[in-house]
């Protein structure tokens, strides 16, 4: 992964000093609550239900084993023994004391980490494909581009106080695994007819209160110009985005208000002045950044006979491998997804011991590196096939080998009402109740690929709009209720789910999911996935089934009480 040079290091060191002084002034009463808030947010520090929450940047999900051990140490020393992987590939700690945060940031800076711009109305952590650099369907490695964007956006003086937060994602593969269509800027690395590299630029996607799929504003921006083009987009937004209403302040609202044609015209007009300016990228800079990733040099290996024999001989291993092992661009290697969705645990949580143990796995099997995913799991990008069986056993010993990747129980969930001050309702207990209902592995395998995404409020951190089944916590006269959507999807076919009807009480949720699943099983053809069936037969049939079975349950409940 990217290794800092002296300038990268100096910037995070200077940030630590700056924030330590800001915290000192706040605690001394020199900075008011209102003045400190944006400063701490731009350093990932929220004041939450129980304590501050510190969100640490994991640039495009890349972590090394040294960093993992530092995170484990932080979990143990400053938190209650665990950390949480977010849906934007970052890591959150829910229990640090404000006074300790400067010290934590100092520890992070020593391992080339920081919390810069992980919150606040600024350009956030750039996200990407967790299989970047190793995916067989990738045409260009997005990581150097992500790093170039990270550097450009870090403390960008013009864009530190935008109308609202701003998220950028980059995809370089045939299948988009970075959900670029629901980002403020989605960058798709493409080649034009002449074979030159550039970016298709989408703007104005986003989830939250007003979910919108991003629209194309440029079909091809030459790679040299991408920072200039992004600057043009950001300047138009910074000057004209709404600042009177936080709910209407995202760039998607501006794009909708102007219309994408007019928005694109304004961006082009701005870009005309910036094109070929000093921020124009050079091949030397791209090569320099790429070199600092220091990727292991892999040569193709013979397909491992032992691995294939183990797949046949060991049914449990084969079940795990089917879900967790992915193809790799180099023969004889594979990528592995470690599941952070064992039953009964908050999705995406890792204990201090698991941070250390994952670091050990990374050192032993994966060249010392891992990636966090927006689905809140961990990827080991490059593992020799010959090591997979032993890796599986080791992962199982630390509870990270649940064979449910991509299945119903691999639930994306925000921290929800248990932790988050914004939430209307809890997320984690709903996830756990659903996992409980579907704890039979054979049943789970039979249901097949299915994404359930849960958000505790409109802000949609759990990406519920793009879940095949989306669950949104809502407040109904002070009680926690859940609205269900069906038909959302991420990736190339990104789509927003449709609300099926009135919301449900928490206790009803496992039954609601059962109704949806049963309707799918009764209607599916051949090896159709849940989402394929929804697309073919429509949402109505699912809706009818859910509410009919709900009425039946309510009537049965009433007659039982007579």
């Amino acid at each position, binding site marked *: 992964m990217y290794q800092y040079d002296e*300038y990268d290091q100096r910037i995070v060191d200077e*940030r630590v000093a700056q924030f330590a002084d800001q915290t000192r002034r706040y605690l001394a009463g020199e900075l008011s609550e209102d003045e400190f808030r944006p400063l701490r947010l731009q350093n990932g520090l929220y004041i939450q239900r129980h304590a501050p929450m510190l969100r640490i940047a994991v640039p495009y999900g890349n972590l090394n084993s040294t960093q993992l051990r530092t995170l484990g140490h932080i979990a143990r020393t400053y938190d209650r023994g665990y950390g949480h992987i977010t849906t934007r590939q970052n890591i959150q700690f829910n229990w640090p004391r404000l006074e300790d945060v400067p010290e934590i940031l100092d520890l992070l800076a020593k391992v080339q980490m920081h919390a810069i711009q992980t919150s606040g109305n600024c350009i956030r952590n750039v996200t990407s494909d967790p299989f970047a650099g190793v995916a067989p369907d990738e045409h260009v490695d997005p990581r150097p581009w992500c790093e170039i964007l990270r550097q450009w956006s870090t403390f960008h003086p*013009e864009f530190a*106080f935008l109308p609202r937060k701003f998220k950028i994602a980059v995809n370089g593969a045939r299948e988009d695994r970075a959900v670029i269509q629901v980002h403020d800027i989605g960058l798709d690395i493409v080649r034009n007819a002449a074979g030159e590299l550039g970016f298709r630029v989408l703007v104005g996607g986003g989830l939250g209160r007003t979910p919108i799929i991003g629209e194309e504003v440029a079909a091809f921006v030459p790679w040299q110009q991408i*920072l200039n083009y992004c600057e043009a987009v950001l300047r138009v937004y910074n000057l004209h985005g709404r600042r009177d209403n936080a709910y209407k302040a995202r760039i998607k609202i501006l794009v909708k208000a102007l219309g994408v044609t007019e928005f694109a015209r304004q961006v082009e007009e701005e870009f005309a002045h910036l094109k070929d*300016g000093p921020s124009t990228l050079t091949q030397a800079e791209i090569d320099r950044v790429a*070199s600092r990733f220091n990727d292991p040099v892999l040569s193709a290996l013979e397909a491992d006979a032992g691995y294939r024999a183990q797949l046949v001989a060991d049914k449990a291993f084969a079940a795990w491998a089917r879900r967790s092992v992915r193809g790799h661009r180099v023969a004889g290697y594979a990528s592995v997804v470690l599941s952070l969705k064992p039953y009964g645990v908050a999705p995406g949580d890792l204990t201090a011991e698991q941070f250390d143990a994952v670091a050990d796995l990374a050192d032993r099997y994966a060249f010392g590196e891992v990636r966090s995913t927006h689905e809140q799991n961990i990827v080991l990008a490059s593992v020799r096939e010959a090591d997979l069986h032993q890796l599986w056993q080791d992962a199982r010993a630390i509870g990270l080998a649940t064979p449910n990747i991509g299945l119903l129980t691999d639930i994306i969930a925000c921290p929800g009402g248990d932790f988050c001050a914004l939430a209307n309702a809890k997320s984690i207990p709903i996830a756990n109740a659903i996992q409980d209902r579907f704890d039979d592995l054979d049943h789970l395998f039979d249901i097949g690929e299915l994404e359930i995404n849960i958000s505790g409020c409109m802000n949609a951190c759990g990406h519920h709009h793009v879940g095949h089944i989306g669950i949104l916590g809502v407040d109904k006269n002070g009680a926690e209720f859940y609205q269900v959507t069906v038909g959302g999807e991420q990736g190339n076919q990104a789509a927003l789910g449709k609300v099926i009807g009135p919301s449900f009480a928490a206790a009803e949720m496992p039954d609601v999911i059962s109704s949806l699943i049963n309707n799918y099983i009764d209607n599916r053809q051949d090896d159709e996935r849940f989402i394929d069936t929804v697309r073919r037969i429509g949402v109505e049939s699912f809706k009818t089934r859910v509410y009919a079975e709900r009425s039946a349950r309510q009537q049965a409940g009433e007659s039982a009480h007579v």
Partner: protein
Amino acid sequence: MSEIIKSGRVQADEWTVLRLAEGDDPAAVALPAGRVIVPLAVWLARRDALHAQAEAGVLGVWLAGNEDPAVLAGDLSALALIAVDFPKFADGRGYSIATLLRTRHGYGGELRAIGDVLRDQFFFLLRCGFSVLQPREGKYSAAQLEAALTSLRDFSEPYQGAVDRPEPLFRRQPRTPLHKEAA
């Protein structure tokens, strides 16, 4: 008299910022004596009458966040001082307005940040081309303002180009690929 930060030092200020009260007529409102920074509306309403004062360096113009700096494009050579107002420190439009004045319109005179100007934004303001920072009067004690000067230098080598250093870090400094460093 308020204090300003200019050339890296705290200095006494000689200018008065005129803000219109509700119902004030930009064409008729009385201007305070001495050096004055008037709202754009006043300048546009009375440009001919005020031109000589601007040329003499005793009258400047300030822009609100929703005002397009291009409106002043023809007046820039006459104006020795333009200010940009920050109604709230978290309202970042002024950074783009300053950048446009310096880069697009080539304004070379004094560019002043007024309004809710706080020390934790000093670094960003300087980078976007402001040459004078004017914190809200009474916001900082003399000692606090002296201490705040360190915020002008929060970061020594920023990554991206901006008005103060138009070239990004990779053009300003030799940055080494990894294999060369290891060798």
